């Protein structure tokens, strides 16, 4: 197959494939993005679920603490006893309506827990923070009536929040309650307070170690993976199922230290979480994080990519199949043409023998007729000449066909003999003379190639024959044919000139292509259209060329042949 057709077929396959690949890549990358987005949303949903658990945990604690701090009258030993038996409680405190600390009373004897508590929280009672939180909360309760919204106000170090899932029936004042966050002992401490109807505030500081432990107890643990095989390679929905791969969830405090983590995926240090959300009130400053393996994220997009790849492969296969079918058709067409050529070739070959015989016997007949009386021989002689010239024409035709076929097979080699070109030229021209004479074409010979040179007489004959035959066929109207020859440095230059209609310059290249004719009309002079092509091929095989030159007097046509 020709390289050109290979390239063509490749183009037919590759071009649409590349276009399709480009388009679907863009599509796939956007699909990957949406998938990852969905995945992120899914993980955030999980975090929110977990956060909901944390919120419920604190709501329970809040409820418990609300009951615990529902104290209007107290004596110190009763409070101390309460502290002793309540696991969650670090310390209780009571502030009078006027803002005075009633318990633990710094002016009375304190036990060690009370003393430590006061040392840690002195600023909380002397400063404005707790008071502000209480006042702010109460204002909000008054403004909003029964519907207090969770506070979103937050300061750097302390934050207040309030949530009132439970509300004792009664006035606005005893509705006020909330969480207060205070930092001591290298950590965040939670304080729950409520204002009683008497106006006094009863608060409870929770034991940090304990509520963290309780929080941890509420959160999931790392289940032992039953079987880690079958990871990946699932459908998209399976890949999006967070249980089908390893994750790591982490609860971090405001200093970004890990408080608790679960999930089998081992996160190396410094890795950013895949997604994170702030923890529910009152732990605003803490965060819930989710870590997902890098491969999983790629996997999420991979399904889209694999689908795309499959599509591309299918299209490529279809195109290849089409190209193959096309190629097969083309090849069979070529084969058919080759068969036809070969058939014509064979037929031509077969025709050569009988034709030679016909010409031989015609020549014999000519000699026979020559011996007869001119009266008797004149008429048959005229007819015989027609037979002979037509025979020659047929021989040339067959010769052309055979040469063409050999050219195609590239089995044409000049067989050089040392000959004088002019003698050959004369013989050839003489062979055409009767036909040209009958068309009243004058023959001018200006021969100047008298030095013998190695030359293939068949080549020369065929080249010159084809050129003369062209004059005969197409340029008879000019009534002139001039053949010139010259020799220089082993190069034989021939030229065949006519005074016919000529060839337009735009067609000068075209006429040398096989089967090309200046006019396709049927009425146009007979010919196969391969003569010039063959002539040029032969001349090139013989180390020369044929070119068309502008005639001197601007009429007709001049072919210039070189051979060496």
């Amino acid at each position: 197959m020709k390289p050109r057709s290979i390239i063509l077929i490749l183009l037919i396959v590759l071009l649409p494939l590349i276009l399709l690949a480009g388009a679907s890549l863009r599509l796939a990358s956007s699909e990957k993005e949406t998938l990852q987005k969905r995945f992120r949303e899914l993980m955030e949903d999980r975090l929110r679920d977990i956060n909901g658990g944390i919120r419920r945990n604190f709501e329970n604690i809040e409820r418990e603490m609300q009951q615990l701090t529902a104290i209007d009258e107290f004596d110190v030993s009763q409070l101390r006893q309460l502290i002793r038996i309540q696991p969650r409680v670090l310390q209780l405190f009571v502030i009078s309506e006027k803002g005075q600390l009633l318990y633990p009373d710094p002016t009375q004897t304190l036990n060690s827990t009370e003393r430590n508590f006061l040392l840690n929280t002195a600023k909380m009672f002397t400063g404005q923070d707790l008071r502000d939180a209480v006042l702010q909360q109460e204002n909000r309760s008054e403004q909003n009536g029964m519907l207090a919204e969770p506070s979103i106000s937050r300061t750097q170090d302390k934050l207040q929040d309030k949530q009132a899932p439970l509300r004792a029936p009664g006035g606005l004042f005893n509705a006020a309650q909330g969480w207060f966050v205070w930092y001591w002992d290298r950590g965040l401490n939670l304080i729950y307070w409520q204002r009683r109807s008497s106006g006094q505030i009863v608060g409870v500081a929770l034991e940090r170690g304990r509520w963290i432990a309780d929080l941890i107890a509420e959160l999931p643990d790392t289940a032992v993976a039953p079987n880690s095989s079958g990871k990946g390679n699932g459908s998209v929905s399976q890949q999006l199922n967070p249980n089908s791969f390893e994750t790591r969830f982490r609860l971090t405090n405001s200093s970004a230290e890990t408080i608790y983590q679960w999930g089998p995926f081992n996160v190396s240090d410094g890795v950013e979480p895949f997604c994170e959300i702030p923890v529910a009130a009152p732990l605003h400053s803490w965060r819930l994080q989710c870590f997902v393996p890098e491969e999983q994220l790629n996997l999420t997009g991979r399904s889209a990519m694999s689908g795309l790849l499959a599509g591309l492969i299918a299209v490529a296969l279809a195109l290849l199949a089409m190209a193959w079918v096309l190629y097969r058709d083309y090849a069979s067409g070529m084969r058919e043409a080759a068969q036809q050529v070969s058939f014509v070739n064979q037929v031509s070959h077969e025709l050569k023998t009988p034709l030679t015989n016909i010409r031989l016997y015609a020549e014999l007949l000519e000699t026979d007729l020559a011996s007869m009386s001119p009266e008797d021989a004149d008429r048959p002689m005229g007819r015989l000449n027609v037979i002979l010239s037509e025979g020659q024409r047929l021989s040339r035709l067959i010769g052309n066909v055979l040469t063409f076929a050999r050219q195609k097979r590239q089995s044409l080699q000049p067989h050089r003999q040392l000959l004088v070109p002019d003698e050959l030229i004369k013989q050839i021209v003489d062979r055409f003379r009767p036909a040209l004479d009958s068309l009243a074409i004058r023959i001018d010979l200006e021969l100047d190639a008298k030095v013998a040179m190695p030359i293939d007489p068949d080549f020369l004959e065929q080249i010159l024959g084809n050129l003369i035959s062209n004059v005969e066929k197409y340029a008879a109207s000019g009534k002139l044919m001039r053949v010139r020859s010259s020799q220089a440095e082993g190069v034989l230059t021939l030229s065949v000139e006519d005074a016919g209609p000529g060839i337009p310059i735009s067609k000068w290249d075209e006429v040398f292509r096989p089967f090309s004719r200046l006019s396709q009309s049927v009425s146009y002079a007979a010919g196969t259209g391969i003569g010039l092509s063959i002539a040029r091929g032969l001349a090139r095989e013989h180390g020369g060329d044929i070119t068309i030159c502008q005639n001197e007097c601007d009429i007709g046509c001049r072919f210039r042949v070189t051979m060496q």
Partner: protein
Amino acid sequence: MKALTWIQTAFLLCGVVFARIGEASDQVKLDVTPVRGILKEGEKQTTWIRVGVEGFKLESSKQRPPVNLAIVLDKSGSMKGEKIQQAIRGAIDALSLLGPNDIVSVITYDSTVNVLVPATKMTDIETVTKAIRSITADGNTALFAGVSKGAAEIRKFLDKERVNRVILLSDGIANVGPSSPGELGALGATLLKENISVSSLGLGLGYNEDLMVQLAAKSGGNHQFIEQATELADVFRKEFDDVLSVVAQEVDIQITIPPGIRPVRVLGNEADINGQQVVTRLAQIYSRQNKHIVIEVEVPATENGSKLQLANVSVDYTNMKTNQRDRLSGNTEVKFSMSAAEVEKSLNGKVLADVVALVSSEQSKIATSFLDAGDLTRCRQALKENGDFLERNVALYPSDSRLLELSRANKIQQVQLDGVKSNSDPAANVYRKGQRALSYGVDQQLEPKPGAKP
């Protein structure tokens, strides 16, 4: 027929009587004794009161209360190899001591926590042991989370009639989650309020003994320092034996000091001094265990010949045999005399030994805190002073072998620190762990002391 009925009635009566006697032996005994029954008159002085409780004897293992155990095992990377194998073997071996009424859960932790066996009755021991055998070591040490989950498993079957205990094994430094001794201690203290104790088993020299001791001490559990992994099986068994011999729980001791006398400090257990009231809770009393606390009081100058009430003590506890809340009470008083000989004669040697042991334990803790701060000079000085104090008291009461032991231990400690240049020295580590374990033993009176036995 009538005679027979009489005989039957007589037998029944006898039975009742015997039962009464039996019941009396199923009571915790309370003993309140001052160091000296007679004090010097006319001067303000410091004296000590020993409040001792003694567990009754658990007749047989059939009588023992059911237990609710959470075994929390460290399976971090440092436990790889021999350690984890021994731990698995030890735990499985100890589990064979449990019966079908007992509840057990197994929690493992590394960087995260795995509730390997959720709280379950010990009816299917195979499943539990199989799960324990599957443990492999890797990762970091999320000790706090492990204890949290362990306590949560206990809480599922939290019951006053059970002995609720978390047994924590660790060989390392907690490095995931809360990890300060204070935080772990605080968690332990809240667990005590719920009647859950944590026993901490520290393996090797790498663990944070302060953290492990605080956790155990504040929750009323045991702390054991295990130098070699091969000891693990014994330690587990010992711990289980302890848990299985609890006769009283939630032992709340309330001591009322009459006005005028000032309670200064309480040794031997965490206590609150609320004015004239001292309250403290012992997590449990083991079978035949002698357990005591010491109250240091400041007595005002008092006239010759007068008597002074020193303390009124009441003890409330859950009797694990009867599952009832029992109450004991006692009090003590001192006389005042001008005769030095009389004062000297009134010295109660056994009580003195108990007091000296606890005071010296406090002193050695101070020495260790100097070591932790890197002040080796003051550490050595404190140890020396403690040694002198012990020697003085050994001389005062030579018949108590325990004080001699402590004196000897103090000398060993002093030798251990010889040539130690920094507090990160391995020898300092050995000393520190030894001291903490010793102090812990003294404070908790875990070992049956020869001198304390009747």
